[in-house]
């Protein structure tokens, strides 16, 4: 029995990856549904023994506990719903690629849920993030690509921050399982840095205000299947990461709690104001999500300020995440259904030049100016300097001098005279 559940655990993230392999996928009729099967079966198994995979990465583990069972269920439902919206597998290259990204994102999502250690969670969420970026961008119009680019910028920044978090964690404890890290960090001298890095990292990933700018764009332009996934995949996993990684209920950081609560409140106010101002039906899910994450932040801030409060919550945060996911699905589906008359199916939109993001403009400017100022001209500058130095040293003159010296050395008279002189010097030196 244990072996079967272990295999199921392994297969949950593995099967989608395997199915993403193009030759396999094209031979199977409904790869997106089949990929979900191990997860579904896993949900039916009453008790799952977590497994240790010491050979995987830096030693990982997989497992399903009470909270993550709910999350898994939510994911399965969301992915099934999204799969129904997928275009029929055809010969279109863009659709094929879309399916690949779909499966990869699925693998990342399911894997992150069943991961029991930080490195595993980090790896799966990275896979999920890059896959989701592909989903956003492939076949979308220019707004979608813009959203994708903002998303990937945030994600890289988030990954960097979370990598630091991992390093800090690893230097405090050798075990990377959630529980032991939580314990170790809460016992460490200054958990503040750790906590703030985790918060910033996952806020970037989940699109929490003020890192929300890709959310409205995504909802405005993405395919229905992708719009359906936004709530359950990046947002839910970001919030889950906070809950899993933070030593909540064990440390007391009142200052930080206050700040987070203020930020949460600001997010809610902003979302309401912006949502009323735009008043576009399609953008409603985005503002809903922002309001939800704002509430979550307030709750989290309260938990940080006072561990007792957090401990009272119990499993509520998990349920909150689950219901957020479900709620988003419903909202999106409803809006889809409302707009289905005048919503053209997402197809290949005419490719045109995208207006670049501010971050890209900055990066581009850095590259341009950096190139002009230093790096590109550096070899030229160096060679110019060398040339200058060369002219100072006058290589030509040196050459002439060398030639002239050899010429005079080749002359019989001078050479022999020199030789005499040397003979004399030798003798006198020796005689001394």
């Amino acid at each position, binding site marked *: 029995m244990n072996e079967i559940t272990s295999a199921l655990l392994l297969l949950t993230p593995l099967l989608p990856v395997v199915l993403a392999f193009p030759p396999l996928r094209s031979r199977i009729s409904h790869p997106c549904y089949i990929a979900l099967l191990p997860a579904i079966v896993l949900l039916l198994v009453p008790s799952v023994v977590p497994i240790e995979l010491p050979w995987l990465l830096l030693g990982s583990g997989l497992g399903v506990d009470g909270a993550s069972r709910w999350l898994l269920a939510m994911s399965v439902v969301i992915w099934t719903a999204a799969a129904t919206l997928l275009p029929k597998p055809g010969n279109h290259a863009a659709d094929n690629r879309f399916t690949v990204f779909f499966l990869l994102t699925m693998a990342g999502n399911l894997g992150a849920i069943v991961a029991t250690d930080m490195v595993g969670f980090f790896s799966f969420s990275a896979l999920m993030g890059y896959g989701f970026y592909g989903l956003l961008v492939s076949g979308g119009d220019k707004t979608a690509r813009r959203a994708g680019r903002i998303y990937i910028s945030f994600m890289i920044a988030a990954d960097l921050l979370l990598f630091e978090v991992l390093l800090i964690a690893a230097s405090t404890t050798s075990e990377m399982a959630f529980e032991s890290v939580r314990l170790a960090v809460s016992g460490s001298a200054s958990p503040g840095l750790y906590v703030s890095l985790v918060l910033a990292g996952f806020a970037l990933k989940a699109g929490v205000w003020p890192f929300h700018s890709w959310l409205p764009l995504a909802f405005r332009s993405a395919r229905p299947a992708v719009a359906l996934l936004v709530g359950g995949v990046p947002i839910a996993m970001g919030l889950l990461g906070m809950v899993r990684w933070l030593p909540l209920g064990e440390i007391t950081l009142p200052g930080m709690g206050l700040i987070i609560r203020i930020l949460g409140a600001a997010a809610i106010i902003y979302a309401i104001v912006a949502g009323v101002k735009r008043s576009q039906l399609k953008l409603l899910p985005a503002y809903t999500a922002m309001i939800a994450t704002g509430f979550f932040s307030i709750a989290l801030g309260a938990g940080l300020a006072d561990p007792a409060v957090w401990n009272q919550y119990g499993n509520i945060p998990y349920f909150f995440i689950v219901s957020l996911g479900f709620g988003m699905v419903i909202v999106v589906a409803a809006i889809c259904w409302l707009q289905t008359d005048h919503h053209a199916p997402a197809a290949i939109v005419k490719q045109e030049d995208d207006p670049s993001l501010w971050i890209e403009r900055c990066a581009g400017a850095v590259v341009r100016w950096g190139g002009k100022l230093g790096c590109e001209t550096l070899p030229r500058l160096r060679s110019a300097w060398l040339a200058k130095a060369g002219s100072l040293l006058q290589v030509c003159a040196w050459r002439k001098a060398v030639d002239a010296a050899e010429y005079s050395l080749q002359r019989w*008279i001078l050479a022999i*005279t020199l030789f*005499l*002189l040397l003979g*004399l010097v030798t003798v006198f030196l020796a005689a001394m």
Partner: protein
Amino acid sequence: MRSAGRRWHYLLFRWALMLLLLAVAVGLGYALLSLPQQAVGLSEQVSANMATSGVQNPVTAVLLNFRGYDTLLEMAVLLVALLGVWSLGSAEVHRKIDPEPVLSLLVGGLAPMMILMAGYLLWAGTNTPGGAFQAGSVLAAAGILLLLSSKRFPVRLMGWPLRVVLLLGLGTFAAVGMTLLFVSGGFLQYPSSLAGAFILFIEAAATLSIGVTLAALFLGGRPQAGPYR
């Protein structure tokens, strides 16, 4: 201006060189004067071994017996010089001149005399000053005289016979040395009883070779006959 400057440089250089050479000369003179007052040489050893050398003239004894190996190599030097001259090109054809009758007569008379003289010098070398090189020089002088007076040597002598004569000295020397290696067990180690004969034999061959080699050197190039043409 420029040439004047050069000239000045040249003069300066000359004077510097003279001073330098003066220093060399002074140093050399000082070294010579500082030598021990009494000659430290090999006179004693030479006179002690004269009895077994086979000859009475100590110079010949040193040349052909005590330090005979040097002389052997010296013959090789002559051969190398000749080959070197030959490698430069063939001898120029001398102008066909009609020698004056006086010269012709003189040469006709002198040459046999000189050959005879060479023979005497060779013979005398065993006990008084004289020897192979002196004899050879005289022989060479005779040959050069003949050449100058446009006496042509027969072409068939310019090939193989000429080369044999040229090699005679070196060849004999080396052959005797090798033979002695088997006879008395040492290279150029004469049995004391036969030393005189061996030395005379070698000297005779060497005289002939030296004479002909020097005359051939005078020609300044390869002979116009034979495979070296």
